[in-house]
């Protein structure tokens, strides 16, 4: 819309063109469309075999006035699952899968799984209500060359073992940790820092909570 307006402006307003143009024009280049994550899908595939179970958090109007909602997660006691997390923008038509971009920048992203129903690296060891255990099942090098620092997990794929029956919470956080002044901000020990309640570097791209039932 802005480029169209600028053309009109030029007609009205020659000096702005003579001086320097009114700013760079990028006709037809919608380069900000992929930045929104409006849907987070968790796919639990039983390692022993069986149909995957998919549960999603969805905020169909983005940052509009309607609250997003999470589907309750139901898993079977004693089963071990491979959890795959997907980040989507279904406000765009067709929907855009942002997971690929996160994978491409595996060294700048970290997925944490925590909550009072989860025992794992990002949860305090004192959690007694844990119904599942969480362990990372991928590494940055799974998504491309590990150029910077340690070969740390990304967390798009992890292993969840349902250890206790009951109902509690499960929370998935995606942190964007780009380099700051040439130094990597994604470091080992971030899940433990999160578990200890410390402030982490970087920004939160996703922070969604689910009700988890193990039966």
């Amino acid at each position, binding site marked *: *819309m*802005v480029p*169209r*307006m*600028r053309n*009109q*402006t030029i007609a*009205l*307003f020659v*000096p*702005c063109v003579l*001086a*320097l143009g*009114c*700013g760079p024009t990028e006709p037809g*280049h919608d*380069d*900000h*469309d*992929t*930045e*929104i*994550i409006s*849907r*987070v899908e968790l796919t639990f595939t039983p390692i022993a075999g069986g149909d995957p179970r998919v549960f999603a*958090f969805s*905020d169909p109007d*983005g*940052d*509009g*006035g*309607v*609250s*997003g*909602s*999470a589907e309750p997660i139901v898993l079977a006691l004693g089963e071990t699952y491979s959890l795959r997390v997907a980040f989507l*923008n279904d*406000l*765009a038509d067709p929907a855009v899968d942002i997971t690929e*971009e*996160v994978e*491409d*920048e595996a060294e*700048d992203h970290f997925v944490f799984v925590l909550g009072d129903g989860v025992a794992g690296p990002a949860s305090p060891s004192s959690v007694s209500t844990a119904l599942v255990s969480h362990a990372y099942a991928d590494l940055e090098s799974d998504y491309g060359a590990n150029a910077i620092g340690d070969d740390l997990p990304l967390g798009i794929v992890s292993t969840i073992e349902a250890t206790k029956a009951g109902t509690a919470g499960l929370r998935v956080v995606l942190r*964007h940790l*780009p380099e*700051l*002044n040439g*130094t990597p*901000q994604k470091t080992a020990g971030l899940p433990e820092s999160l578990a200890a309640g410390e*402030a*982490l*570097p970087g*920004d*939160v*791209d*996703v*922070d*969604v*909570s689910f009700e988890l039932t193990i039966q």
Partner: protein
Amino acid sequence: MIPPLLLATLVLAPPVNDSSPRAACTLTWEAVVLDADTDEGIPGAQLVLQPAGGKSPSFVRSERDGRVEVTGLCPGTMRVRVSKAEHASLALEVAVEVPQRQADVEPTIIELEGLHDHHSAHVIVIHDESPTNVAASESLAGAELARARGQGLADTLSNMSGVTTLRGPAGGMGKPIIRGQFGRRNAIVVDGVRHEGQEWGLDHAPEVDPYAAGRITVIKGAGTIRFGPDAVGGVVLLEGLPLPRRPGLSGEVSSVGFSNPLGGGGAARIDWAPARGRGFAMRVEGNLARHRAAMTPTYALDNTGASTWNAGTRLGYASELADVEVGYHLMRSRLGICTCLRVSSPDEFQLSIDRRGPVNLDLYTADFTLDRPRQEIWHHVAFAHARVMLAQAGELHVTYAFQFDDRQEFDIVRGDIQGPQLRFGLATHSADLRFEHSAVHMGTWALVGTLGASASQQRNEFESASSLIPDYRQWSWGIYDVERFVHERVELEIGARYDGLHRLALLSERDYLGQDAGGRLDPSRCDRASAGDGGRCTHQFHTPSLSLGVLGRPIRRVPEFSWRTQLDSSARIPAIDEQFMNGAAPSFPILGFGDAKIGVERSWGGETSLQYDGDWLFVEAAAYATYIDDYIYFVPQPQTGQCAPLTCTTRGPFPVFAFVPTDALFGGGEVRFDLTAPRLPFGLSGSAAWVRALDLDSRSYLAFVPADRYALAGRYFWPDTKVSSRGYLELNGTVVARQTRVDPELDFAPAPPAYVLLGAGAGVEFAAAQQLVHVSVVGTNLLNQRYREYNSLLRYFADEPGWGLQLRVSVDFDVPRARGAAV
């Protein structure tokens, strides 16, 4: 600026009876100070007399008719410096001699060039350039303005009493707060054209170049009648120096260097009026500044560098009957936003606040590089102004302006994305017509006044992946009349205005459905051409404003003492965001929603001030109270759903804030004084300001109201030498109390503690025949105090900058083409 009369040597005629050249100090000198433009006498001009022989200087002020008489002078050369607010200062040398003949006794004519628009003598009754006589106002011009060069608009004004800065999280970014009101409740007027930018955002600093102004005036309190509905809180007027009216080449070249943030800049202004083609004049001006990130006492505010440039030109033709001026100004600004700013989710925000310092501080550097997040702005202004004399009827002023504000905001994103995440394009055409009628004399009273009309058309385009504010088109108009009844010691002012606005908001489908589902639209005003195509919502507003003011000089024997009072009822039309905001607010981890059904906000205000403006003492005390009916306020709204009372988003549960009408009461006062010891080289000035603001509906305090503030400055004026003048040393302190009047529900962190800042400065001028060199150095926060400011968005994340020095050097030059025999 130095008028061509600089350092003119005068032979003067003191009437004395003693014929001896070695006479005792009994000579008399007479002079008349006149406005070069209108030839009216200028009352209250200050003359600093430096007699020969290194005696201490003496001070006198011109009488009501501009006359000055000094007795008891010794023979010899006397240096005289004449200064008056809103006029260029003038330095001259006077030879005090015994006259040869009695016929030589004529007063010296001193003409001061006014730093104001040219006016016909018909419409001026009492020479006073203050834009409004009955409201409290404060101006910055000349040397005082020169000492603030190189800073953003808000910082330039922040030493005025009752004016503070709403500081953003980026380098040099801020907007002025006038008596507790900011953003859409203040109007900024540049050369008679209302500045139009994205004023609604807390972190959107006004895209205004303070370098282009020769005088900046702040009207504290409503200026609605003259300046429109957005002026309910106050007005900032920036006026460029007038184009020269005499042939010659003049201008100013200046540079400024800062130590914190490290950087500097330069500015130049060249005015040229040809000897042939009298009446024509032109100006070319520009400035450039760049600085790296600022340093707090203990760490760098990573990514707060900035780079800005401005370029402008204007061409004018002036004659007795008509003036025409056209001009164009372009501003380019790139501002880095502090890495410390973490608003991605409420949890993050709270963690940052609890930490009392940013995460990964050891990686913070003070670079010139501007990374994401940052803002990039182009702001274009083109204007044409004409003044036409209508014989004895008065004069007509016509102004047309076009502004285009192109703002891009870049967030931290994944590497495959290059462009901005938010882009705003705001185009405004505005036209103003003003008729200043000739003075009508009615016995001892005179009536002067202005009838005006204004109209504007505005078009905003917003581009982003998420909704925030819709595109809109709006047309607004206003008509007003201000009449002043002027008597010798009393002035009455009555003003009335009527405004209208037609707004068409173009909501996208998702935006429309979301706002409609939330009950925030008025469906009867929205047109939905076809499902899936969004909605077009039309709103109209019509509203009057009135004001009544008095200026009096109650004590006949003390004309320096004046009393002003103004009563007003002003209306403000809701801004686009107050009606249609729908999305995450850029500065806070909240979702913000407008309400299309919101109506006009009406204020009922009164203010009064007492002022004594004497030879060596200036004191002003002002008090005000304003009741605002249906004050549009941004307050949290409990939500339903899985995350109640917050709302669930993919970035975690967010609080929801919405614009709702409430009733508010603002009150407060200011005191300021400026004392120059009559015979001692010392000066003392100080100010204090208090603001109180209440939400009457919820009986709680309003947010972002400045804390109590006190400032004191002591000055030593060192004696003039053969080459230097007006030298001073200054030590100043500012005390800002803790804001204790807060509603914890409306804020994310407790108000920061009180703080004290110490500053110092020194300056001197060196005059030559055609140049005047100003040098000044200013030190800020010299105790390197760690502090946070209640009105700074940075306070949630990091400290304010530590100590810094600023060095300014400027050269005014003036090469007249024809030396007039005016003196």
